[in-house]
């Protein structure tokens, strides 16, 4: 199934919660989803017999701050890459979140693979995945301050007396 067909299917079922289909001029397409519907859409993608997305490839986070020409650069995105071994098709789901209150439902209950990816997105970009079984930092120490992959992150001068220069 192409991503456009999948988009039409989702649009039919979830209506306004699914964004328009804007095939980009270059690169891969993606489907925008509203944060409230994210978990339901994810469950539908996994369980629908025609879709059967059994393999979660990647959950990643993007900070759009300062990007040129984007409609609203003041936002974060949580992006979900799925693939189906059973049906041999793939889909990319992107959810826009406000920078100051980035909260999103976790999909770790649907795909265990999401567990570590969401921890990393929390660690690096500060997105809080609600309902995650174990939302701790994963790459940085527990007492690290801030989320380094945010565009406005300022590197601390020292960490426990170790200079950072």
């Amino acid at each position, binding site marked *: 199934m192409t991503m456009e067909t999948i988009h039409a299917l989702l649009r039919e079922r979830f209506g306004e919660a699914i964004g328009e289909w804007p095939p980009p*001029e270059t690169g891969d397409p993606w489907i925008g989803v509203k944060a409230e519907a994210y978990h339901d859409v994810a469950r539908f993608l996994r369980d629908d017999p025609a879709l059967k997305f059994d393999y979660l490839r990647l959950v990643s986070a*993007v900070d759009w701050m300062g*990007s040129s020409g984007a409609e609203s650069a003041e936002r974060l995105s949580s992006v979900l*890459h799925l693939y189906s*071994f059973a049906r041999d098709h793939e889909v*990319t789901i992107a959810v826009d979140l406000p920078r100051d209150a980035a909260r999103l439902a976790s999909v770790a209950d649907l*795909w265990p*693979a999401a567990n570590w990816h969401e921890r990393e997105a929390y660690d690096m970009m500060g997105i809080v995945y609600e309902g995650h079984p174990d939302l701790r930092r994963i790459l940085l120490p527990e007492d690290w301050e801030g989320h*380094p*992959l945010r565009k406005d992150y300022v590197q601390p001068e020292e960490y426990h007396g170790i200079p950072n220069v």
Partner: protein
Amino acid sequence: MIHKEAQSSEPILHDSLQSEELLVNMGPQHPSTHGVLRLVVRTDGEMVRETVPYIGYLHRCFEKITESVTYAQGVPYTDRLDYLASMNNALAFCLGVEKLGGFAVPERAAWLRVIVAELNRIASHLISFGTYALDLGAFTPFLYGFREREAILSIFEKLSGGRLLYHYPRIGGVRADLTPEVAGDIRRFLVQMRKAWPEYNELLSENAIFVKRTANVGVISGARAIAYGLTGPCLRGSGVRFDLRKNKPYSAYERFDFSVPVGAGIKGAVGDCWDRYWVRMVEIMESCKIVEQALDGLPKGEIRGKTPRVLKLPKGQVYVPCENPRGELGFYIISDGKTEPLRCKARGPSFCNLSITSEVCRDVLIADVVAILGSIDIVLGEVDR
């Protein structure tokens, strides 16, 4: 304690056999963790009840750095992710940039990339072979594996100048052409590798102790492997026949004839440590087949396509997955039209494969934790990035 027991009327045996759970800290400096990985293991006697991995000791801010360097400058950084498969990393990154930028790669360059990627896969699996034996207490196979790997490193040194970090695939092509001397070296290596492979099997694959340590240990079902996002030999070891080179061919892989081995439970259950190990062993021979075909049919022509001097990618995003020795490596690149990416996310196989350890290393023997970890074959450079 003993004194007290002797005085009490309770049988001494009963008291002294009472077991307590013990937290054991394995790593970060432990040879079997293959780098700096820390496992906190809750043990009950010899049994492991819970394993919690802690990672991040090798975090080098790869993704943050790529946001401040140009695409071409980003290529050598990818070498340092999975440092045992530098060729494959750089290939995946270049393919991503080329797809978003719409740059064509000459046929000869694509074939040369296949040759080096497959040689690097063999080198990586040889390390896996050697260190896995080392983890389980056999020293000799390590020396055999490094003997054959040395030949590959010499070939790479002649091609690229580097023995570990090559920076050979470039955006639009490769750095240097194959000289007749190097082509001869590769052919000699293939002969050497095919002669050595049966020795490996006599030495390790069929070794009774090795089979006892690995068969029926750390069994991962195909469904669990998919749920945890395992890829590469870990996924195929569980019996799922999926290989990006076959299923989603890139860089001219559709031109080559090779088969995709999967775990079949030859020594025990499907998806045990031995199956994962065996998939790697068979892949070594399959890679030899690919390299030989690529050498035989290497097309003539350019080795670098036309790319602009200042590389500005159009706005958009792209995710290109490649089959690395350890599984699916994909770069999720987002460009907003500048010379540097807005975001470059590396989805590394080691990171995802490692995430299953908590589930597999439960209610197993302590010694099995080492066997399971070795069979998953991680490189911490890529886990932590």
